[in-house]
């Protein structure tokens, strides 16, 4: 699966989609889900929580391992995807559709510091070696 070019990416394998109202949705990349394998549990952050960039924000657990999901930028958590409670496997089957939480950025300009699809792919390739 190729990484959608309309998204931004982090080195820790989150994707970020900027919505029309300026809020952002955050999920984990296809590469991340493929490394973790079958997802069985997602722990989402509390609503209204203020987070710094790089702060642990959610946890995804596969049969194999638990992994932290980090806040890609500073901001406030405004929503969590409740659907993942009953169907965590959506992170495997539809990684770029299944968002985990949404944030209101503290500073929209922070988004410019994230990677585009090509830079993220180069990052994944470099980690493979």
């Amino acid at each position, binding site marked *: 699966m190729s990484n959608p070019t309309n998204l931004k990416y982090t080195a820790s394998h989150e994707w970020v989609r900027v919505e029309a109202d300026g809020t952002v949705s955050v999920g984990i990349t296809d590469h991340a889900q*493929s490394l973790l*394998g079958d997802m*069985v549990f997602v722990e989402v952050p509390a609503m209204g929580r203020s987070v710094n960039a790089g702060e642990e924000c959610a946890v995804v657990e596969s*049969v*194999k391992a*638990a992994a932290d999901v980090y806040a890609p930028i500073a901001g406030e958590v405004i929503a969590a995807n409740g659907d993942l409670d009953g169907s965590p496997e959506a992170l495997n089957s539809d990684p770029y559709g299944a968002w985990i939480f949404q944030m209101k950025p503290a500073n929209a300009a922070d988004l410019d510091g994230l990677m585009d699809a090509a830079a993220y792919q180069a990052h994944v390739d470099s980690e493979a070696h």
Partner: protein
Amino acid sequence: MTLKTTPLNAAHRAMGAKMVDFGGWDMPVNYGSQIDEHHQVRRDSGMFDVCHMRVVDAKGAGVRAFLRYLLANNADKITIPGKALYSAMLRPNGGVIDDLIIYFMTEEWFRIVVNAGTADKDIAWMKEQAQEFNRHLPAGDAAVALSPAGGKLDRGNASPHPNPPPAGEGTIPITITSRDDLAMVAIQGPNARAKVWEVLPQTRAATENLVNFQAADCGEYFVARTGYTGEDGFEVMLPKENVEAFWYALNKVGVKPIGLGARDTLRLEAGMNLYGQDMNENVGPLESGLAWTVDLKSERDFIGKAALLANPPTQKLVGLVLLDRGVLRGHQKVVTQHGDGEITSGTFSPTLEKSIALARVPKEVQVGDSVQVAIRDKMLAAQVVKYPFARNGKSCL
């Protein structure tokens, strides 16, 4: 470091496996969905590359007496040809060197299967013990050499060894041979045996009447009704050069390849220990849920027996089911009303759709007790249960 490969490495890659470094071996963790693979074994049939495990042949006229002393379980329990026995092999201090399966073939030949990660140290230990054992062989005649096991042991020889093994019953020395020429594939699941017979019809007559934990030597193929999944099936040993063709032939009749990921969830549901996680050289078998495999009642001496008798266990292994949402993992702290313990193996059980674990806890903890497990910043509720958790396709809870 270059990873070691099994003769099935190319086949795994051709079948789309995700490969991982498993204790220095390049092995398949899954070929897609690990949960689907798990269900495939519980409901139909799957095959596992277990070529990284080591087959060892112990031979010699006194081999039964040797194993009687070497292992914590009693080799005298297996008297029907082909019958297998699960045992721990202990250090003199009672720590577990490895857990293994021995197959009684003849009074001069027992086959042993040991874990991959411990194979070299296991074989070194066996050879060292065999050398000691051989040193105490009486200078008997050929008749003595061929006397059956269970006969009177000659304990008359004075020995400089601090803990002398029982003197051998024969004059043929024990030899320990690592069978690096053999490959091994486990075929497991309710339909597994029928699928093996489709591929190896010539073995059917010899293997049809095998009871659980019994093997037949069919010449090129050594077929054992054993496994590590809690399902029926076979473990087949065969010459390395034939294993790739065997693997593809099984696949052709509908046996799907299963990775190490599902192997772990299957064995944990079946309540089977994993060496290095649930027990090791620093923990004895009685604290590792293996009391049923340790024969302390008979007069027989064995390596580690004195230490086990001198140090009654203060902890035991129990099963846990998580009541809250989350996943139990190894090394998480378990808080009980009798003191703290630790999870040794934890996972999500695809059969139960709940998280399960084995945990080492104070020996006063009982089945049914409520305990708490520290997961990240939370204390989650779990219940102590009797394991296995699932076998033969069904929940045991």
